[in-house]
């Protein structure tokens, strides 16, 4: 049984991000892998050690502050689980809060959880539009796509990016990188949502979650023609593929 934890679905649910949960859950079920989704709200108990896949979405500024405060009380547990190989997908606001801080335009630094080595600086222009990113996992290079919409610009320290920007802005619109990856933590600015169209990535996360429980390492292939054509339409529109 895989346990999916959707953190703060009531707060971090901008831009259809719950599609990521839907995709992960369905792809388990289609393969007959038992799965359950737990929604955790402010102040409720989370057992990170029992969690197989943790999802953190994005929220508006006000909501972001509420959840950072709540997560801070669980920070040690979360950092421990991450070192232990917990599979995490953090999108947009959820991505930013794992880093050191978010510096607003007037210079105030809103501290993050400081679990991963990067910081975010507010930009004067929102980075909005379709985006294509080349990611590499399991030795394969995959072109993924989505929609980004963020004013924060993220700069990585001693941590790998998730991928290279092919079209769009990515982390900060300057260094050509998108997202961040540490152990089994995947951070990204891609909405769209990310997982349904980019089923290679979904299956990779699923595989990592199973491996962590030392379950079967082989996961059966599915008919991904719908996923492929939805992805292809956007890649083609961006002049790729």
């Amino acid at each position: 049984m895989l346990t999916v934890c959707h953190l703060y679905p009531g707060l971090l649910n901008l831009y259809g991000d719950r599609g990521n949960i839907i995709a992960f859950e369905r792809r388990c079920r289609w393969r007959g892998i038992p799965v359950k989704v737990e929604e955790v709200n402010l102040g409720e108990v989370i057992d990170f050690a029992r969690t197989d896949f943790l999802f953190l979405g994005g929220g508006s500024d006000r909501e972001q502050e509420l959840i950072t405060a709540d997560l801070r009380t669980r920070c040690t547990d979360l950092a421990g689980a991450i070192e232990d190989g917990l599979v995490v997908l953090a999108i947009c606001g959820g991505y930013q809060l794992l880093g050191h801080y978010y510096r607003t335009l007037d210079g105030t630094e809103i501290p993050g959880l400081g679990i991963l080595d990067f910081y975010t600086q507010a930009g004067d222009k929102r980075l909005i539009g379709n985006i294509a990113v080349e990611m590499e996992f399991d030795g394969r290079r995959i072109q993924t796509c989505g929609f980004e919409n963020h004013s924060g610009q993220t700069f990585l320290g001693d941590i790998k990016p998730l991928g290279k920007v092919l079209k769009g802005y990515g982390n900060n619109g300057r260094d050509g990188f998108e997202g961040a990856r540490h152990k089994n933590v995947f951070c990204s600015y891609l909405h769209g949502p990310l997982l349904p169209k980019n089923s290679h990535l979904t299956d990779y996360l699923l595989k990592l979650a199973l491996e962590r429980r030392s379950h079967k390492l082989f996961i059966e292939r599915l008919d991904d023609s719908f996923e492929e054509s939805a992805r292809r339409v956007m890649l083609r529109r961006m002049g790729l593929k």
Partner: protein
Amino acid sequence: MRIRLMAAIAAAKITHYLSKTMGGRGSSLPGLIALRVFPGTLEALVRQVPCTVLVTGTNGKTTTNNMLAGVLESSGLRVIVNREGANLITGVTAAFVRAAGIGGRLKHDAALLEVDEAAFPRVAELVKPKVVIVTNFFRDQLDRYGELDKTVSFIKTTLQKIPAVRLVLNADDPLVAQLADVGRPFIFYGLGNRIRGEEVQTPTREARFCPLCGEEFIYAYYHYSQLGAFRCPGCGFARPPADVEAHTVIAKKHITHCGIRVKDSITQVTLPTSGFYNVYNALAVMGAGLWLGVEPDRVSASLMTYVPAVGRLQRFVYKGRPVYLNLVKNPAGFNESLNLICSSEPKDVMIALNDNHADGRDISWIWDVDFETLERQKQILSYICSGKRAEEMALRLKYAGVPIGRIEVHPNIKSGVRRVLEGMGSVVYLLATYTALWPVDKVLRRHAMEVADADRLSSLPRPS
């Protein structure tokens, strides 16, 4: 200045004519041209109209505005309306230009304008409305607006800057109800009690948390998304008592009866349309009527003859079967449309999804729509996905659990419409996003007959 105004109007009228001849709708472009030629066009024209009403909010703007236009026109007033949903500053300007004579004179009694939430601050400061109706705030095209909180706060600051404005506010939406504290006279409207039989709870509620203090709301019941009887345990902010309130709502096929209390008296209203949300629109019109001095009975009589605008649950007939066309543009509205297609008769459904600027370039919002309710709807025989993002729509349905054998992808709208009309069901529903709506309507008209309002009215009870 008059010369520049006349030049702007002439240029705009020529543009309008050319764009019509070329098959366009000419709803915004003439406004753009007029503003280019003379930036003061809108101010110069609006000054000549004694009363301006603005309708803003996420859903229900077009219907509310058109209903209100019907009410005022039936009282013999001459009104300017931006009918086509052209609700940015260019569309508003175009409506005035179209109404003006070539000399730049207007003889109208009122201007009724639906205004996009993001365009509201600029338009409202220019036209200085007498009355503002705010319908509701749902998530809509966020890539244009930034987040919902910001949109609402811009509207709030703008209302504080307009002297002598009177407000008509939805009491059931906490994001709207909070606007009452801008210090302008207001009327609240809402649904009285647990009118909607079933417990409606969707995970896409916008306003889970009090906009004033951040505590989570407690709801006695919901009507529709976050609309309902909310109360904040933190600061006590709660659904205010409404001056215009629906107490009974009976939905029948194609018509809705409601009993509406206006202050202390009850008025019966029959709307020639289904769709729960239309009750809200009617209440807003009733509320605006109070500020404009129109008696509730008069409003009620006019609402009976309301004809939906393009894509507001418009009815057609194809080979003897009913065909409905409805606009979908955000999760809250889409969920309401899904309620309609979950009715029991066998049917075929087309969903046309575009991602042009006016639709919102980010289509992530379709993942916030509760398509999962379709998983067990065996009476929906086929889902035809169309438009620029047809493939993504098909993917969404697949992940909602719809059997993939029933999903077909026809990005081309013409072939999508043809295909859905040939379905085996006894009813056809076409749902389209904003820029897909007119192409769908155009193709539909070539094949199916629109049900004229005369037919519609004959099926209604006569007013006593």
